[in-house]
């Protein structure tokens, strides 16, 4: 059994006009030391997926169904008290904006000691020693002085290093990183990503990396989920998805990158934009933007318009697409006929 198992996760936001379903049928697993990427555009539900792992969704959001099993324990219905044993301790989070996530009125040392003392019965002196050790691990220059500095005295890259140090303080099993490098410059981003990767490998920590940057996902993770309008539409080994995406949306996303086109030529754009979650199109949510919605006869597939696609296995990947399902069925029929 995997360390973390998410099954049919269903998250809704109770709004005046009725429930908005921010996540539907999200399933994935994460093993110790494994790195999983969740990609998608804004509004796809990737941050909600990360936050719901630790039940951090604020009202009016709530987990309406499904299960989140961590190390044999069910997290989705757990009371705050029980969750507090796990949050920050065994599963820790790194948030997007290093300017916002550190408390501006506490020194770095105070914040780290506070975090340690909340979970362990240790003296301040011991807590400071551990903090210093962790700051050393994230390669911050002159860590002793940093302990007594305040967040505003550090640059963005430094702050993100401090946040990584805090995430590692209690030797967690899993780190959930929500766009950890989006607010940073390219050279700093490369450094921070390298650091995070090294530390995860060294301490055998599982990583859930949420990002919109396909380049980062392809370099860092082993498996990935692609999300669209609250659903996972494709999941599997990162290399295979990047090299041979099956779902039309994943294909469109990769082909839209400037690095995939010859310089100066027209980029392959996906027409339209992501629908609002409160007003999803019928059937497959991607069908109004999909260039494969028509079948061989040139008519839109009825299934695409009416029926939400389920997952089909295509190689090592799972894809939620009627067109891919047709292709896979066709291949299976062909191979069956051959064996007959």
């Amino acid at each position: 059994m995997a360390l973390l198992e998410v099954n049919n996760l269903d998250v809704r936001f109770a709004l005046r006009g009725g429930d908005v379903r921010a996540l539907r049928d999200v399933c994935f697993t994460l093993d110790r030391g494994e790195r999983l990427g969740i990609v998608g555009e804004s509004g796809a539900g990737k941050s909600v997926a990360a936050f719901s792992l630790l039940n951090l969704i604020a009202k009016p959001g709530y987990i309406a169904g499904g299960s989140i099993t961590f190390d044999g324990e069910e997290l989705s219905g757990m009371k705050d008290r029980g969750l507090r044993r796990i949050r920050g301790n065994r599963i820790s989070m790194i948030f997007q904006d290093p300017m916002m996530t550190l408390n501006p009125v506490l020194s770095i040392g105070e914040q780290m000691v506070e975090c340690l003392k909340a979970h362990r019965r240790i003296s301040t002196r011991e807590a400071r020693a551990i903090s210093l050790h962790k700051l050393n691990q994230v390669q911050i220059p002159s860590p002793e002085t940093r302990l007594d500095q305040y967040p505003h005295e550090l640059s963005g890259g430094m702050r993100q290093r401090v946040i990584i140090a805090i995430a590692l303080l209690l030797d967690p099993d899993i780190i959930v990183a929500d766009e950890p490098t989006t607010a940073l410059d390219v050279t700093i981003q490369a450094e921070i990503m390298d650091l995070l990767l090294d530390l995860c490998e060294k301490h055998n920590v599982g990583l859930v990396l949420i990002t919109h940057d396909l380049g980062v996902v392809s370099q860092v993770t082993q498996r990935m989920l692609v999300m669209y309008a609250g659903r996972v539409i494709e999941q599997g080994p990162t290399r295979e998805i990047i090299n041979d995406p099956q779902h039309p949306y994943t294909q469109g996303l990769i082909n839209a990158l400037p690095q995939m086109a010859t310089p100066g030529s027209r980029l392959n754009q996906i027409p339209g934009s992501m629908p609002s979650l409160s007003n999803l199109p019928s059937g497959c949510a991607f069908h109004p933007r999909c260039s494969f919605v028509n079948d061989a006869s040139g008519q839109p597939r009825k299934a695409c318009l009416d029926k939400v696609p389920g997952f089909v296995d295509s190689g090592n990947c799972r894809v939620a697409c009627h067109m891919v399902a047709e292709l896979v069925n066709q291949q299976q029929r062909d191979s069956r006929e051959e064996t007959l």
Partner: protein
Amino acid sequence: MTAAVSQHDSKAPAAAAGNRENDTAAPLMEIRNLYKRFSLSGDFLEQLKFRGGKLVREQEHVHAINGIDIDIRRGEALCVVGESGCGKSTVARTVMGLLSPSKGEIHYDGQRIDHLSAKELLPYRRRMQMIFQNPYASLNPRMTIQQTLEEPIRLHHPDWSKERVRDQVRDVMDSVGIDPDWGSRFGHEFSGGQRQRIAIARALAVDPEFIVADEPISALDVSIQAQVLNLMMEAQQQRNLTYLFITHDLAVVEHFGTRVAVMYLGMVCEIAPTGTLFAKPRHPYTQALLSAIPRLEDDRPQHIRLQGEVPTPVNLPTGCVFHGRCPHANERCRQEVPALIDVEDGARVACHGVEEGRL
């Protein structure tokens, strides 16, 4: 004014032919030895301090731009890249006349424009327009799209009839792919990508020839970025526009730019045609920047790791601004500011190491 426009038109075919190495034509925009610093010290009274019993005046400055020379040629897309705080947005704003330079000159189409009054600048403002980063902030929330797009036309063409203004708005909305019937809607009714289209439409409404775009796609999603980039490239071909494109995204630069200027701490460290820069980066900073782009193909490439962080632009380092993080820095780099020198393939590099042949 009209003469200038016709002169521009006569040169249009040459630029449209995509003649990238056309050095002989006069550049559209010339930035000469530009400096811009911002005071950190408040007003005059706040600058006065007592030191050793004496009243002294102390001033501190952020040195945002420290002597840059850039030519922008007709019909090209010049991209300026660099990390946050390197002064690229200040360049954009100074060029547009939104900030006045502390020192140096800006010439547009042969005319010096940096010292003009707002009234004298007005005819140039029609010919140069700007697109901003955040389409959520750059559209007035209390104006309909129709009003937003009519405003610049009315300002620059007060003699136009209502019908002509309305036709122009319809045309420009059509050209950016926004349904002209949506004119009565407000900005908040549109998605980020649509808003950026409207911002582009506003820039195109007065038929400019030069557009400064400050991170126009950074706030947008990947699939929408492609739409907006395509739109900007189409507009460039159809209207023969010249772009000054500010961005931190090097993948976009490689695709979009004719030439690239790499900035670090208010200085240009390398300026080269896009192909040359990506094939053969000379400056150590450019090399580090290019190696840091997350690419799809490779699993874990070896980044060139830079030491330390960008120094503060308040106290500039002596010599080359990059020497503190440069793996190849020597004594000369710590003392002497490197000038841009010509190397082959039309590239210009400001690096002692390249000049001496060490790199």
